[in-house]
């Protein structure tokens, strides 16, 4: 049970100034492991992606994966780091069944990348610079499943089962310098920072970057100090916070908990905390003690990595456009307002909209479908919009049928449901379900086309969002049909035609 007292966030902020620090582990998506040629694949049968190196058998020799070095250098460059002229691996010694060698091969005093920074854009556009201390290479550990305990947690477990498929998977650990001055925006910054790192490694193509699979994992350090004091307070380290939302919540919670401890006149314990998603609280892990005496020493089985400056520049030349720059470009290309674009980014459909536009949809049609139709469906299904599997071509086809007046928006939405249910392509579904705009709309559509063609400037205004201008077009249609058309229906058809949602 968690019984820690907490202060309200507002009160904590009045009294204290938070300092943050993050260690983000990124699993690389190389074909093979860091030091062995066993495959780096998620989700296979236990202990089948292992060989003698991964199992730490006596007398085996590790050999460094060149692709993993290249990915690490790319990450370093994308984080604006310096790349070491020479660096070494080191052994981090500890006894725990997740590492069969009894040490983790890591880097200690010579990381491959150091002294970088990342500019983080907060939701209101404020840019906050996070300094990067280092990014170093290491290997992942095996996966333990604790069995027999009442809750499946380690406390109360009778035994543990170990799968070494993950042992030796290449990792890059990104460590920030202490982050000061975030104030009450610390939780938001925490989330935005981890999101930015995830976006960068995904954009580089060096990691699958799926947090739910542990491809990106965050340890969050939090400490508080009274306003105006320079010296840092004692920090806690919350381990394995594995979703963006959880990062924000964990930092917020730890700030509130520290504040209550300090208010009670007690010292904060320097310790590891475990995050619990269900209660959105942390509980004490172990206190930092001599168990953290890892006795690092240079790995004698591996020789130094000496990236030539030519190699580094070659890799720099392959870097894709940075995500922040890409966002700026796409917003300008698509002509979305700041608010529209932020909504698109927050809904996580920027890539999807880009693909849909590339497939032939207009920017406004792509946004209408993703934001107006698909995001809501994804929310209902509790998945990411991209996971629904809507193909860009489907949207292009649906939009074309609406534009040609074959179906209206309501029918198109119905057809999309059919596509998602696996009933076929849009035109197949339209045929199968006998969907078509009632024939009465035929003459109306002709009149609308004529009215739009007669007043292209008004049409543009409506497209641009000035829906009130529609009266002029409706008026034209009513005149042409001698007032016999249903004005509401006419209005609906005009909006559909122009791809405008109200």
């Amino acid at each position: 049970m968690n019984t820690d007292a907490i202060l309200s966030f507002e009160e904590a902020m009045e009294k204290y100034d938070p300092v943050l620090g993050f260690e983000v582990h990124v699993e690389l998506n190389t074909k093979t492991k860091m030091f062995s040629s066993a495959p780096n694949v998620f989700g296979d049968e236990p202990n089948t992606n292992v060989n003698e190196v991964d199992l730490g058998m006596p007398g085996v020799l590790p050999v460094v994966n060149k692709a993993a070095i290249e990915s690490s250098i790319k990450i370093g460059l994308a984080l604006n780091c310096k790349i070491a002229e020479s660096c070494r691996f080191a052994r981090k010694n500890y006894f725990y069944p997740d590492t069969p060698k009894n040490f983790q091969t890591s880097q200690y005093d010579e990381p491959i990348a150091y002294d970088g920074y990342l500019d983080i854009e907060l939701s209101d556009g404020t840019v906050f610079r996070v300094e990067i201390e280092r990014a170093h290479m290491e290997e992942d550990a095996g996966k333990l499943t604790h069995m027999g305990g009442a809750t499946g947690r380690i406390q109360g477990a009778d035994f543990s089962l170990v799968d070494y498929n993950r042992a030796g998977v290449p990792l890059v650990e990104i460590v920030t310098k202490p982050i000061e001055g975030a104030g009450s925006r610390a939780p938001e910054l925490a989330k935005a920072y981890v999101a930015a790192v995830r976006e960068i490694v995904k954009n580089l193509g060096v990691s699958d970057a799926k947090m739910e699979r542990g491809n990106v994992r965050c340890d969050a350090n939090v400490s508080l100090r009274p306003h105006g004091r320079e010296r840092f307070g004692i920090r806690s380290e919350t381990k394995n916070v594995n979703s963006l939302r959880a990062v924000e919540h964990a930092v917020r919670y730890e700030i509130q908990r520290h504040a209550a401890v300090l208010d009670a006149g007690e010292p904060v314990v320097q310790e590891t905390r475990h995050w619990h998603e269900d209660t959105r609280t942390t509980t004490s892990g172990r206190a930092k003690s001599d168990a953290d005496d890892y006795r690092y020493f240079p790995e004698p089985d591996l020789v130094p990595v000496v990236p030539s400056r030519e190699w580094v520049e070659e890799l720099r030349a392959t870097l894709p456009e940075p995500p922040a720059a890409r966002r700026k470009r796409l917003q300008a290309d698509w002509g979305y307002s700041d608010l529209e674009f932020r909504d698109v980014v927050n809904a996580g459909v920027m890539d999807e909209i880009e693909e849909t536009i590339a497939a032939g949809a207009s920017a406004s049609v792509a946004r209408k479908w993703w934001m107006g139709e698909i995001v809501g469906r994804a929310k209902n299904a509790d998945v990411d919009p991209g996971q629904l599997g809507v193909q860009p071509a489907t949207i292009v086809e649906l939009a074309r049928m609406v534009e040609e007046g074959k179906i209206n928006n309501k029918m198109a939405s119905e057809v999309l449901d059919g596509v998602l249910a696996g009933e076929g392509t849009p035109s197949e579904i339209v045929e199968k379900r006998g969907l078509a705009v009632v024939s009465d709309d035929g003459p109306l559509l002709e009149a609308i086309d004529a009215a739009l063609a007669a007043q292209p400037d008004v049409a543009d205004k409506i497209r641009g969002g000035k829906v009130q201008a529609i009266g002029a077009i409706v008026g034209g249609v009513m005149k042409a049909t001698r007032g016999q058309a249903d004005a509401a229906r006419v209005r609906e058809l005009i909006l559909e035609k122009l791809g405008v949602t109200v």
Partner: protein
Amino acid sequence: MAAINRDDVAHLARLAHIEMSAQELDRMAGELAVIVDSVKSVSQAAGDDVPATSHPIPLNNVFREDVVGHTFTAEQALSGAPDSDENRFKVPAILDEA
């Protein structure tokens, strides 16, 4: 270099999960001190012009291409395990060290 004392040995034993009796600690403190002194004699041979190194051969950038090689079957992987279950290594529950 400071000598290895009994507390150092007790500390190392704890880190290494090795249970040692009082007599063993005393004996090991003495023996380790001798070993460390012997190794230290290397520094007498190496002058200031010899840099510290982690590797005796002046090599660097020994890499492997990212190409999948051999793997064990789960059965092979587990063949030396004292205990296993569901194709996984079975180990006693270890508390407070996760």
